[in-house]
């Protein structure tokens, strides 16, 4: 149920982001979703890609620090209150959202949101109990 997210350490210098996209493009890896967190000195680029292992390999070979993080892709009703309902049930169980970002494509009529939880397994259980659809990695990479 978990999705592999690639996290990349980037110095805050011109051209570093473009270097990542160049390498991925040359390796024919498709970026499915991304989010960039930044401070004044450095940033962390988070990516969901079509081929995790290939992307990690090519980035590592070119000297980037990369990490693997387990995230959860949740289908959210594309209606008012859709996201709120999910956050509420997590709050009630004291699961903390470290960060989240939206996936580019929809799954049917639902939006897809990528979540990084502090307690991933527990979060998945709660979502299951509440019958909230979760998109498995294999499906997500190839959407």
């Amino acid at each position, binding site marked *: 149920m978990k999705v592999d*997210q690639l*996290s990349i*350490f980037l110095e805050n210098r011109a051209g570093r982001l473009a270097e990542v996209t160049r390498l991925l493009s040359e390796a024919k890896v498709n970026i499915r979703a991304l989010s960039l*967190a930044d401070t004044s*000195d*450095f940033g962390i680029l*988070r990516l969901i890609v079509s081929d995790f292992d290939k992307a990690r390999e090519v980035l590592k*070979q070119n000297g980037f620090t*990369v990490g693997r993080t387990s995230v959860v892709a949740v289908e959210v009703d594309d209606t008012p209150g859709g996201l709120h309902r999910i956050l509420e049930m997590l709050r009630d169980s004291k699961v903390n959202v470290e960060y989240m970002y939206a996936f580019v494509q929809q799954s049917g009529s639902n939006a897809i949101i990528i979540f990084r939880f502090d307690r991933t397994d527990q979060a998945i259980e709660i979502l299951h109990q509440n019958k909230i659809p979760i998109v498995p990695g294999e499906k997500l990479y190839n959407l």
Partner: protein
Amino acid sequence: MILDVDLETLPREDLEALQLRRLKALVARVYENVPFYRKNFDEKGLKPEDIQTLADVKLLPFTTKQDLRDHYPFGMFAVSRENIVRIHSSSGTTGKATVVGYTRRDIRNWGRLMGRCLAAAGLTSQDLLHNAYGYGLFTGGLGAHYGAEELGATVIPVSGGGTRRQAMLLRDFGATAICCTPSYCLHLAEVAQEMGIDFKSLPLRVGVFGAEPWSDSMRKEMESKLGIMALDIYGLSEIMGPGVAIECAKAQNGLHIMEDHFLVEIIDPQTGENLPAGEIGELVITTLTKEAIPLLRYRTRDLTSLNPAPCRCGRTFARMKRVQGRSDDMLIIRGVNVFPQQIESIILETEGLSPHYQLIVTRENNLDNLEVQVEVDESLFSDAIKNLQRLESKVQKNIKEFLGVTARVKLVEPRSIQRSEGKAKRIVDMRNQQA
């Protein structure tokens, strides 16, 4: 093993008697043969016969690197050119090169002392030494080479550079020991890793590292990461080259100085006054046996302290502490004395940071700014901003707490700090260029 048991374990009294005998002969020799010293003695009204005890060494003049430069290239030699069998020279990046010469006996002594060092590091004739010190004018390569041969070990004269090939040879030949600068060894291990060669799986068991300052925390890091015992060796070309002092594998607690050949003192670098044992100051060396270029009270600029107590390895030679810095490397940041090694220790004690760092000093509005750039360690990389920021502020806080200066800590991408094939460049001081 102790290579020269009779000498290396001499009771202090006998050692001092030997030193005094050699000192007297040395003083007579330089007065006779080196115009620079003769002139200096005459100006002071000093006669070689005035040196009657070891303490009288204080009467002798200091020799500095500048004196060697002023007599470039051969002006300080005490023997005629036909007796010189080898020349070495420093790189001369910060001024004129310093040139040193060796007689046949000097070379023999050097090989023997270096052999003693390798023996103290636990090497025997069974060992295979990967010698990655540069061969050439630099004393490192040939110095270690002759020492290994003296000991009967198998030496692989790989010299510097060609790192991928070095990693391959390390694996294929199965070297049990390596000699190089500590920063190069780390670089080599990284490159090997990329090639799928794990240092820990190699037969390599000991590293003899020198030619640049490093810290105890860096030692710990290297020992656990590379699976070897890391020992510190000391030397400088003006005095001889590598082999002046070495840490023994048994105690790993201070570097034994080859006192039968070198008379050492610790002085206050500002006043030139001698300091008592245990106090940190500048190391001053008098070469007792050198023939080609004997030096009186050479100011090494290296800061250390001496421990005259015999070691549990059996050696009686005094031990110098790992070099704490150089009196000319010292950074003065807003009036506070800072040595790169102090910052290195703090970085290495912080989990998640690599030993690759650089200090950038700039001046803005007449105020010094210190920026510490450190590479993020792959193994502890976190995708959460707050964890990385916590690392930055932890280092910043420790620098403030232990050194009393405010530094800006900046995490940088791995390999963005230039790797050295030789000595690591730790400091970029831009204050003079800006002024």
